[in-house]
């Protein structure tokens, strides 16, 4: 008998074992839902899959009676747009600050302590400030994501750029490179895959900020919808929405990972080695 730490499942077993917990959860849910609905067909807590399907069908494929929009897609589009713009701003600013503080000791001396302090401010606590300054429109939601994520990305990129071996920078100088050329040809290309990693890691918080901002003040969006229908205990809408958000998050993460692997093949090799 092999030691447990040496037992590795074969490919088929691996897939089976991976699917097993999902199947168990699904089964538990269905049986619990059936039991409750048998007791009381009006029960809202654990809707059946048919009820959830109906709810999503209504939201996704029938125009809303009030506005004529297809709410599900409208919500998805609004949320993704906010998330996209917020993350784009955070990634650019984070890259800029991280790169400059990482590459130039002069900038580091004056901005690195500030960056550390700023990153300690809980972004959610700034949300009221953002609402006051930017109003309740789109800007404050995008700003929350940007403000919440930028310090994390900036610090990560700063750390990564300091991790690039000094030998490479010396080497570039012995090849006659000036500061600009070193930043553009040596630092930025090596930091881009790390930026993608940082964005992937911060997407979870970005969704958190997005849904919180939408819950508090919005007229559409995935977060807005789940908090809106909470008033009617509409679990048949909330649960599919949550699953949809998880699926979107997974797709974005997967797409970024693929992008990194295709655009920076050398990075994947390095990762594989270490």
């Amino acid at each position, binding site marked *: 008998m092999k030691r447990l730490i040496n037992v590795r499942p074969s490919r088929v077993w691996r897939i089976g074992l991976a699917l097993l917990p999902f199947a168990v959860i699904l089964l538990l849910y269905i049986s619990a839902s059936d039991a409750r609905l048998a007791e009381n067909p009006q029960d809202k807590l654990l809707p059946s899959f048919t009820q959830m399907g109906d709810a999503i069908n209504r939201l996704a494929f029938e125009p809303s009676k009030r506005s004529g929009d297809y709410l599900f897609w409208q919500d998805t589009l609004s949320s993704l747009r906010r998330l996209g713009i917020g993350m784009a701003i955070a990634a650019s600013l984070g890259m800029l600050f991280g790169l400059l503080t990482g590459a130039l000791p002069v900038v580091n001396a004056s901005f690195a302590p500030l960056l550390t302090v700023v990153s300690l401010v809980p972004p959610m606590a700034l949300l009221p400030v953002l609402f006051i300054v930017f109003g309740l429109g789109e800007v404050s939601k995008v700003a929350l994501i940007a403000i919440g994520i930028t310090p994390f990305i900036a610090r990560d990129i700063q750390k990564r750029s300091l991790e690039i*071996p000094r*030998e*490479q920078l*010396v*080497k*570039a*100088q*012995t*090849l*006659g*490179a*000036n500061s*600009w*050329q070193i930043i*553009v*040809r*040596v630092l930025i*290309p*090596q930091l881009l895959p790390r930026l993608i990693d940082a964005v992937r890691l911060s997407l979870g918080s970005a969704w958190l900020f997005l849904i919180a901002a939408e819950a508090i003040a919005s007229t559409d969006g995935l977060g807005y919808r789940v908090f809106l229908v909470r008033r009617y205990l509409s679990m048949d809408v909330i649960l599919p929405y949550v699953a949809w958000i998880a699926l979107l998050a997974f797709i974005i993460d997967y797409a970024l990972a693929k992008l990194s692997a295709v655009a*920076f*093949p*050398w*990075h994947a*090799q*390095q990762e594989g*080695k270490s």
Partner: protein
Amino acid sequence: MIEIRNVWKRFDDNIILENISATVKEGEFVTLVGASGCGKSTFLRMLLGTDSPSQGSILLDGKAIPSEPDSGRGVVFQQYSVFPHLTVLENVVIARAFERSRLGFLWGAAKKTAREEAAELLNIVGLSHMLHRYPDELSGGMRQRLAIAQALILKPRILLLDEPFGALDPGIRADMHELVLNLWRKHKLTVFMVTHDLKEGFHLGTRLWVFDKLRVDPQAPNAYGAGITYDLPVGACEPELLEEIDGSLSANKQAEEI
């Protein structure tokens, strides 16, 4: 060409190097050997410009050597010398890009010329079959060949090698010695090579410097720094001397360890 005048190096209370003076003519191949931590790499960094003497001066053609690395002094480190995000060919071409374009990018005809030139140089160091691979796909020896090609494309006057073959297998090392000697003769370089392998020092180059402590205080091992204890022309010395130097280096090392 290079004049070293009474150079001292201290870190706080620790004296690393004491009172080093020497003159090196153009085209010499100087090998620096010594126990680890004796300051030979520090000395090389001073020649490179990433470190400066605490006292004394290093002159290049009568002027103080620039205190920043530049394209007149090529370098190969033991590792991390090449850019992992560029292919072998691009690793060499980038030197021309730094030189010829303010922004650091080459286009069109300039790019083509630089690529041809780089490919030729890579052929000399034996990497012509690896042009489009990334450094992480290469073996340690190939990576050092690449680093050497990269350091030579701009034809520096001085080539600094910091234990360049320290991590390589003995067989590959011999090939690398051959390569470095050929390139040195062909390009009329002035070479400084740090190594901890005394035999390598005797085999390569024209001149051997042994770095060691001139005085040792067992109570305060860092009170005295290392100097050049032997400055020998290579080829003119007996095997007995090699053993003697080897013995004295290890004796001092033991004294420190006690």
